[in-house]
Structure formats: structure tokens, C-alpha cells
């Protein structure tokens, strides 16, 4: 192919801007209709879908929580019995952790990360599509099982021996264990795609030291997923093997160990908290910088704090097991590590406060959620330092004090920043501005409702109310606090309702947003709202940490990517110099088919171990279909190939 022939296929000064956009639109769009919906590999579409699905599971799990609060509003209530109550709290905890909190953070990242990197699509988009389908299948399976009276009922961590074959006949624990497998496969796949996108597809010039804090947060989180999630996959697989094919991992009588389950579970379970929390820190940094109108104070300490949190997060798991009688000296180590993690958290809190202090803060809804986060999370952190010490932990273990603590950390530390981030990214995703008045009302209700619901639980725990009881007798001094908590829970739910109602209304009635309505500094705001399918007509070139604040007049861009074939720019890991024009995959049905085949295998394995053997056949067939290039792809690749050795000659 001659140079002149090639040049008219690429963006640049030689190609008319309108033609460029039209060609890119044509190249990157998916087929119309239902088929197109099933085969899409556009990270923006998958990200939106992932967010909506996670919020759906959030609503379902929230309804379970409201049912529990109704039951506990009055002493000796008979609204639900002990068996259903066991399913309610187990489903609520499991679904909130595995089907909402982790997936929703990854979902937002799937949407935002490629745009913030300035690239046209995420790395491995088919893998991300697969991740969505497998997540959807796993979540539906979990809730359909619950509807069929096979809901998880052994708590969100399903400790053995209670969850083992002897004490939990039936299929309830198996559905829990396989739900874990579904969601872990989904999370691991997305994490690989996010890591590679962040390390290899950043806009040219966005060297690691110019990378926005949100991308750092997602990078650290994704690495944590890689190293933490295999532990819970082992834990849940060993559990299901003990139950179904008579292995003895956790069977004390045959040389197994019940405590081993707890080690494996919490080796994942504690990092899990940070896997949920660190993306939220990323949201906070984005929002604080944008609304304080200045870069986040102390960029380097912030990055180091994120990395330190990620590493320390792996050294805390035993603090969930202080009540198991482990050696005292070992507990001392984990106490120290648990208290130590307050240092990077504190560094970040003070850096944000300094940013707000020095900036000119604009108190829009997203920033309100961030302030709510600071208040609630600091309280959760304080009780965290308290329960990190063994004597206090032994006193309040398995009481409502712990319930209060982790809701302060998780709702304050993750859900508040998430709501802020959803409000913040809404104009980019939809092209419409979210309403400010309803937004503020939503914030007020969630903030007041949250504290009303969960603050009393500290006191309930200190006055001895155990968690996971389906009712309690009158006269123990718990009645008033429980009623208050229930009122708070409904206020909180009303707040969520107002928040989402506001977004739904704004979808139709909101003012047009424009490219950068908040005046933010990162690249996702350089393209139109909502972004076109190809995201950027020309890939931006980055020369500072805050590209859109530095380049007021016009944005420098690179040219020379193909407009008649899907291409993304691969850059050097550290310096982000352009290296390769990498073809990006076309839409395909294979991710969905592979997810369905895998779902068949996972669900089948609950009923017969042979499903693992025969189930591999459809999985293998669909995977081969996935990787086998079509004739058209082969021809396309062949026609435009360009070996590395020729790079210098061509340039």
C-alpha cells in the first residue's frame, strides 16, 4: 500500500473534519437493534449497563434491608420468621458486597477510565462484555434462587462448619458459593482490562507522574483484585467441594481446618473493603479538584497514600478473627497494621481539606456528598481504630457496634462518594445537567437518614445487642434505638429515591450539558457529552497534570490513526510515548455465548460434579469461536499491516 493511499484513511489535516467524524462514526458504531445490543463491545455502553445493573441489585438488597428494619422496629415482632430473616441478612450482605459495591465501582471505571485516558475503547472490550454478561447471569441466579427459597442463609461470609455439609443440607450454601465464583470471574476480567488500559492506552504525554488520581486509584484497586480475589475463589470452591464431592478441607475430623476457611475468606475479605473504598477515594479526588477549582494538594503524597493503602490492606485480615483464639503476639501485629492504615487515610483526608481550604469551593451536589463522606468516614475510621484493638474487639465482636462501624465505613466511605460521582458524571454520560435542587434534597435526606439509622447501632452494640438476631425481647433498653434506626433507614431510602428520581427526571428535563459543564481538568471532559462512539475524533496529547486547565485555547492532538478501521493508540508504560497503533476488536456475539456456557457449567456444578466435565465442551467451543478471526478481520489485518521494523522508515 502506498503512502498516499494510506493517508486518506487516517485522521489529520489532510482529511476534512466532518468526513473524519462521519467515517469514525461509521467504523465504530455497532449493528442496530437487539442484535447490536447483544454484540456491543463499546465500553461506554457496557459501562452504562453495568452501572444500571449494579444499581438494580443495590435497590433489591436495599429492600431486603428495609424488611429487616421493619422487623426490628418493635420488640417481639412476627413480621418475618427466623428462617427468612437468616436469608434476608445473608442475601443483603452478599448482594451488597458482591453484586453492588465491587461491580458498581468497576462499572463506573469501565465508563470513565478509557475516556480519562484519552483512548477510543477499553483494552480487551470483548472480555469486558463477557464480564458484564457473567455478572448479570450470576446476580440473576442468586436472586432467582432466593425467590425459590434457596437464598443464601449463612451470613455474607458463610463460615464453616455451619455452612459445611453436616449443618447446611440443601442447596442454599451452594448458590452462595457459586455466586462468588460468578462475581469473581467478572471482577478479575474487568481488572485485567482496566490495568492494561491504564498502563498502555494513556494519551501520549500522560506519563505516570501526570496521571490523574482517579486513574491511580483504579490501578491500585485492580491490582488488589488480582491478588485478593483468588483467595475467595479458593475458599468458595473448597467449600462447595467439601459439600458436593466429599473433600475434607474444612473437616476437622479428617485433618481439615475450619479456621482455614476464615483465613482464606478474610485474606480476600479485608482487601475487599479497600477494593470498594479506593475507587471512592478516586471519585473524591476528582470532585474535590473540580469544585475547589485547583489541583489536589499534595499529588505525590496522595499517590503514595493510595499505594500504601493497597499494600497495607493485605496485612489486616486477621483483625476479623481476633475472637478465634489465635496467638496473642500475632494479634498484636495485626492490631499495629490495622492502626497503621489510618496514616495513609489521614494523609488523604488532610490533603483534600487543604485543597478545599486553599481553593474557591463551589458547593454543588457532588461536593456536598464529598463533605458528607469526610464526616461519616472519619467517624467510621475512628470506630475502626477502636475495634482494631483486641480487648475492645472481643467486647463488641458480633454486636451491632460492628454493624454500625462497617456501615459507616462502607456507606460513608463508598456510597456517598459514589452518589457524588454519579451526579458528577451524569452530564457526561447523558448530555443533560442533573437538577441541583432535588440533588441537594437527596443529599440532605441521605445524610440525615444515614446517621439516624446507623448511629444508634453503636449504642445498641455497646449495650449488648448481638447482630443477626431476628427479634429481641422488650425491656432490654433497645426498643427506642431500634425504632429510631428504622425511621432513619426509611429516611435514607427516601434520600436514595430522591437522588435517582432527580437523575431520571433530568434525563428528560435537564439543561444540555455541553462538553465540560463543571469546568473540570481531565480528558473525559474534552469530548462532547455524551461522547460519540469513537470517543475522540483525534487522540489528545497531554503536557501537564491538568490538561484542560493548561490548554485554555485549544487542545493539542495527535493524528494518523485510521478512520476506516478500529484502532487505538498504545503508548509506553511509564512515559506514554506513542508506540503502536493497535487494532481494537469488532462487536461479537461470542462473549455472550461464552458467558452463557460458563453459566451452565457453574449452575450445573451445584447439581452434579459431572457438569464441570461436560460443561467445559460448550465453554471451549465458544472460546474458540471468540478467538478465531473472521475472514473479514483477516483480510483487514492483512491489508493494513505494518511491522515494528518499518516504523522509522514510515515516520
Amino acid at each position, binding site marked *: 500500500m502506498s503512502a498516499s493511499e494510506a493517508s486518506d484513511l487516517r485522521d489529520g489535516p489532510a482529511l476534512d473534519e466532518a468526513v473524519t467524524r462521519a467515517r469514525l462514526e461509521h467504523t465504530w458504531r455497532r449493528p442496530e437493534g437487539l442484535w447490536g445490543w447483544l454484540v456491543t463491545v463499546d465500553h461506554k455502553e457496557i459501562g452504562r449497563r453495568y452501572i444500571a445493573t449494579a444499581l438494580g441489585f443495590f435497590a433489591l438488597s436495599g429492600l431486603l434491608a428495609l424488611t429487616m428494619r421493619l422487623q426490628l422496629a418493635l420488640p417481639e415482632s412476627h413480621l418475618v420468621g427466623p428462617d427468612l430473616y437468616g436469608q434476608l441478612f445473608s442475601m443483603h450482605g452478599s448482594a451488597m458486597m458482591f453484586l453492588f459495591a465491587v461491580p458498581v465501582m468497576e462499572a463506573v471505571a469501565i465508563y470513565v477510565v478509557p475516556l480519562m485516558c484519552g483512548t477510543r475503547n477499553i483494552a480487551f472490550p470483548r472480555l469486558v462484555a463477557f464480564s458484564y454478561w457473567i455478572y448479570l447471569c450470576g446476580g440473576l441466579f442468586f436472586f432467582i434462587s432466593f425467590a425459590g427459597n434457596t437464598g443464601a442463609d449463612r451470613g455474607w461470609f458463610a463460615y464453616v462448619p455451619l455452612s459445611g455439609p453436616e449443618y447446611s443440607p440443601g442447596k442454599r450454601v451452594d448458590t452462595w458459593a457459586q455466586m462468588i465464583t460468578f462475581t469473581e470471574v467478572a471482577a478479575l476480567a474487568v481488572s485485567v482490562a482496566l490495568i492494561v488500559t491504564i498502563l498502555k492506552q494513556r494519551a501520549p504525554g500522560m506519563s505516570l507522574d501526570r496521571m490523574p488520581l482517579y486513574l491511580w486509584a483504579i490501578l491500585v484497586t485492580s491490582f488488589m483484585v488480582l491478588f485478593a480475589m*483468588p483467595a475467595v475463589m479458593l475458599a468458595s470452591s473448597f467449600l462447595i467441594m467439601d459439600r458436593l464431592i466429599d473433600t475434607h478441607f474444612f473437616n476437622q475430623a479428617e485433618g481439615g481446618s475450619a479456621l482455614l476457611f476464615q483465613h482464606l475468606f478474610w485474606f480476600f475479605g479485608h482487601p475487599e473493603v479497600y477494593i470498594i473504598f479506593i475507587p471512592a477515594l478516586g471519585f473524591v479526588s476528582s470532585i474535590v479538584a473540580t469544585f475547589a477549582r485547583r489541583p489536589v494538594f499534595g499529588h505525590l503524597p496522595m499517590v503514595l497514600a493510595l499505594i500504601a493503602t493497597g499494600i497495607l490492606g493485605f496485612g489486616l485480615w486477621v483483625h476479623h478473627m481476633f475472637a478465634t483464639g489465635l496467638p496473642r503476639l500475632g494479634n498484636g501485629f495485626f492490631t499495629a497494621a490495622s492502626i497503621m492504615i489510618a496514616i495513609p487515610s489521614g494523609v488523604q483526608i488532610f490533603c483534600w481539606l487543604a485543597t478545599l481550604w486553599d481553593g474557591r469551593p463551589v458547593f454543588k451536589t457532588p461536593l456536598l456528598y464529598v463533605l458528607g463522606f469526610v464526616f461519616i468516614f472519619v467517624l467510621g475510621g475512628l470506630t475502626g481504630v477502636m475495634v482494631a484493638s483486641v480487648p475492645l474487639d472481643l467486647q463488641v465482636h458480633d454486636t451491632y457496634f460492628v454493624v454500625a462501624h462497617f456501615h459507616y465505613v462502607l456507606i460513608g466511605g463508598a456510597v456517598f462518594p459514589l452518589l457524588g460521582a454519579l451526579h458528577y458524571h451524569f452530564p457526561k454520560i447523558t448530555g443533560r445537567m442533573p437538577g441541583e435542587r432535588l440533588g441537594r434534597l437527596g443529599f440532605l435526606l441521605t445524610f440525615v437518614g444515614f446517621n439516624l439509622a446507623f448511629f444508634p447501632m453503636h449504642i445498641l452494640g455497646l449495650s449488648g445487642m448481638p447482630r443477626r438476631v431476628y427479634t429481641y425481647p422488650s425491656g432490654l433498653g433497645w426498643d427506642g434505638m431500634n425504632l429510631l434506626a428504622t425511621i432513619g433507614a426509611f429516611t435514607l431510602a427516601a434520600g436514595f429515591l430522591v437522588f435517582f428520581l432527580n437523575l431520571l427526571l433530568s434525563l428528560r428535563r435537564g439543561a444540555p450539558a455541553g462538553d465540560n459543564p463543571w469546568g473540570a481538568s481531565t480528558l473525559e471532559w474534552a469530548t462532547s457529552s455524551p461522547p460519540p462512539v469513537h470517543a475522540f475524533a483525534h487522540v489528545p496529547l497531554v503536557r501537564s497534570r491538568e490538561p484542560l486547565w493548561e490548554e485554555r485555547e485549544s487542545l493539542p492532538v495527535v493524528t494518523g490513526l485510521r478512520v476506516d478501521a478500529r484502532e487505538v493508540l498504545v503508548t509506553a508504560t511509564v512515559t506514554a510515548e506513542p508506540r503502536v497503533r493497535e487494532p481494537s476488536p469488532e462487536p461479537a456475539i461470542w462473549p455472550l455465548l461464552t458467558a452463557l456456557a460458563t453459566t451452565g457449567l457453574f449452575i450445573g456444578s451445584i447439581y452434579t460434579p459431572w457438569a464441570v466435565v461436560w460443561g467445559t465442551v460448550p465453554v471451549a467451543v465458544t472460546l474458540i469461536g471468540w478467538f478465531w478471526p473472521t475472514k473479514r478481520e483477516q483480510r483487514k489485518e492483512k491489508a493494513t499491516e505494518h511491522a515494528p521494523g518499518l516504523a522509522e522508515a514510515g515516520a
Partner: protein
Amino acid sequence: MRQRFVHDVSGLPDHDFGSDSIVWWGTLGFVAIEGMGFVLAVAVYFYLMREVPSWPPGSIAPPGLIYGSLFTGVLLVSALPNHWAKRAAERYRRRGSLLGMGGVVLLGIGLLVLRGFEFTVLHVRWDTNAYGSIVWTLLGLHTLHLGTDVADTAVLLALFLTDRDPPQRRYTDVSENADYWWFVLLAWLPIFAVVYLVPRLG
């Protein structure tokens, strides 16, 4: 926002080997995940070892060495065709890639047969006790990776056999597939030591 053109990337290649290939990074990511799985499974082995007075527990004999050693030998030999495949691929040589991958697939099938025999001389079933469970799991986990990579390599081989003039990008797949085989190979050595040698120490 207005834009100004400052740099042209049209001269860049459409693929590269090693750290400028995104699939290379993806492979590394999955190696990290699966490597972590192996590390944790080995940790479980040692954790369970502490739970009982003798290892293997009771009167169980350590696994027979013959097939495991043979397996290890053949696996080490497979590094040769694997290396050839990688080297040929990085020079865009179809014949060399075919021969290398063919060698890996043939040896891989042999390895799977040997692995079948390994399971017969463990002297313990998975449902005998926790020792049996973890030994079967370690071996099973490695077999899963071995089987997957043999299948992967066979598919790639078929792709090359059906296409006389494959796009250059396809050769990066051969190179990265060879990297993954190295992972399967190197992951085995500590597992061999744990399954076969540790029970002979005490």
C-alpha cells in the same frame, strides 16, 4: 473544544512483541491471578500439614515418583519446541512457528496422559482426608492450566495451518502463547516439590 494537530503517529507499527503489546500485558495479568491461585493453594497445603502429627497422615505412602518425574522431564523438554516457536514467530517465520507449536502440542498430549497416570499413584483419594483433598487439588489445578494451554496452542496451530499467509499480528499470538507455556512449566516445579518431595522430608 478547538484542537490543533501537533504530532503524527501514522508511521507507527500495528503490533509489536513484548511490553508494547497489550495482549502481552493481558497474559501477564492472568499469570498474576493464576500464580496467586497456585501460591495460595500451596499455602493451604502447608497450613493443613500443621494440623496433623505426621505427613502424609496415618499410614499413607508418599506419591509414587515415577510418573511425576517422567512428567517433569518431558515438561522441561517441551521448553525447546516452545522456545523455537517463540523465536520463529518473532521473525515472522510460519514454518518454524508451526513446527514449534506442533512439538508443544504433541508433548502436551503426552504430558496429559502422564498426568493421568500420576493421579493413579498418589496413594490417596480426594475424599480420604484433607491431605488427599489438597494433593488432588494442586495436581488438578495444574492439569487445568496444562489442558487449557495445550488446547490454546492446538487452536493457534490450526489457525496457522489453515492460513498460508497469516497477518503479521498473528505472530504476536504465537509469541505470547509461548510465554504462557513458560508459566505452566515454571509453575509446575514448586508444585512438583510440594506434592512429591515434601511428604518424603518428614
